[in-house]
């Protein structure tokens, strides 16, 4: 095997002086500054909300939605896996007997408090039924009361998959 000696970086006088590195860094920032101030049309910043983003990818974790089965009924079986996985404790579920014969359990209440949600997507990973997804592409949610940020089961069911996303 033998031992490979890696030369320690930053030991030369030039490195120790700091000045050359600082100057080159300042050159870089200044170059950006000058370029952008000369012509600011190439800035990455969009003038939101007049200009809406067009580059939200399929992996973007937007506001949640509850999916439906083929017969248009709720997929969720109220297993609480999402609530268990949730690091923010923002999911409030109450289960009930399901009587339509599709399954035996479903949520009576399924609330997500968006103010507490950290959008980590663990609930989506945890769901064994693919019942909760974050593919709505909704990145902006506004309300003027705290209670309006609590999404109910109906609201979550009403959310749909973003049309911008590719069909996979």
């Amino acid at each position, binding site marked *: 095997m033998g031992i490979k000696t890696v030369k320690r970086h930053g030991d030369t006088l030039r490195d120790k002086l700091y000045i050359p590195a600082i100057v080159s860094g300042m050159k870089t920032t200044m170059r950006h500054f000058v370029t952008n101030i000369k012509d600011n049309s190439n800035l990455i910043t969009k003038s939101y909300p007049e200009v809406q983003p067009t580059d939200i990818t399929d992996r973007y974790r937007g506001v949640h939605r509850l999916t439906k089965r083929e017969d248009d009924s709720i997929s969720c*079986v109220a*297993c609480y896996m999402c609530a268990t996985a949730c690091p923010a404790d923002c999911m409030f579920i109450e*289960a009930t007997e399901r009587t339509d014969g599709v399954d035996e359990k479903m949520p009576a209440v399924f609330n997500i408090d968006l103010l507490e949600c950290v959008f980590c997507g663990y609930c989506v990973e945890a769901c064994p039924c693919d019942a909760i997804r974050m593919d709505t592409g909704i990145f902006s949610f506004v309300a003027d009361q705290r209670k309006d940020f609590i999404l109910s089961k109906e609201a979550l069911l009403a959310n749909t998959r973003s049309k911008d996303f590719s069909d996979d």
Partner: protein
Amino acid sequence: MSNIVNIVIDGKEVEAEKGAVLIDYLFKQDIDIPHFCYHPALGTDGNCRMCMVEIEGSKRPQISCDTPVKEGMVVRTQGENIEQVRRDILELELINHPVDCPTCDQAGECKLQDYYMAGGFYESRLEAESKVKAKKAVDLGKNVMLDQERCVLCTRCTRFTDEITHTNELGIFSRADHSVISTFPGQELESDYSMNIVDLCPVGALTSKDFRFNQRVWFLESFEAICSGCSKGCSIHVDHKKEKYKDDQIFRFRPREDHDVNGYFICDDGRLSYKDENDNRLNDASINQETVSTKEALTNIADVLTANPNDTLLLVSPFLSNEELALIKEYTLNNGTTLSGYSPQYYDESFADDMLRTSDRSPNRAGMMALRINENEKDFNELLSQKKVIVVIENSYFEDKAELFKDKKVILFSSKDTKVKEFANTVLPVASFLEKDGSYTNSESVTQHIKSGIRKNAPVGTLTSLWKAIESLSKEKA
């Protein structure tokens, strides 16, 4: 001591009792042997074949639940061979199991699930559509639901009804992989102990109608307590949970193994008595029906008690702990008040049976008797007519006898919102049975201690702390 023999378990030499069931011995050694059908209360049945161990000298792996301990036995509970055998059998166990843990109440305390996760069968070799289908939600009658698909046919439930309750409601029907557990036609589960089969069931086939879908078990916290449903004082686990934004709430009682008191089981009434703890709570102190602070009520009570100590009757109840009773008893001795423990309303002859249930539906009458607190009816009635101040402490005797309060000053300590409140001059809420620590003596003179794990949002003081406050207030006045 010839009963003790030397055996070797996983290469370790140990001593064991000759003739004992090997699996019992392994449990005692904290060796976890997967098993479904074996249960110490129900004995060996040997049908699940999960508890296989290797025993040197025998050609094939043996089930440890049907192997008596013998001198010189060399047992292996680990190793590639035996684990492969367990995996094989577990795979068969799962081959027709719906694996619907998400909707199964047992998930989290399910043995099959544990073994499944440990074994890592994330893919079945049998396709889902080939699985044998059976009925999913069968109402077995009293308090129990059955899911025939999830059943592993360990027959613990049928053996419970056959051997423990002798009610024989359950049986196995059909053959091979179509075998299902069910009640006999036209029969329902009627036993007063039927919910024990929910605990016995190692999988989610039998679930409690009461607890069904209420909570996932891994959210629950638990502490050890006793049941206050009758003077048997069965040992229980109290499963409770303080949900976000909600108050601490009890979700279920589970029996706790206690060979001095109840063995492995409790009755259904006791099990469902947790509802009394959650419902109908008294939270606010009041003086003459007006809500006041605890402090004001305490001052008021101290005033009344110091004013007429000789004209005061304290009525305690067998729902109080030994410590509380002793405290009040000491108070009466020091202050000249009189004390009674008259509480005939807790007797219910129809409740008793020859298993666990007793006719006295209060947990601590034996403790009250040990403190020599008078329960005599005649004495009580005499005192009641003489005394002008009646202090009722957690005693429901006056629930339907409010007319006895005429011309009297009534002080009520209660954890329940009772009708007596309307006739009482001063009302003070106290912590309920499971919210306080204390010891209780059951009808068989076994004293058990509760250390409460419940944390309410707005804690109401325990009787002990409130009473001490009253005592010190009284002293200030004197």
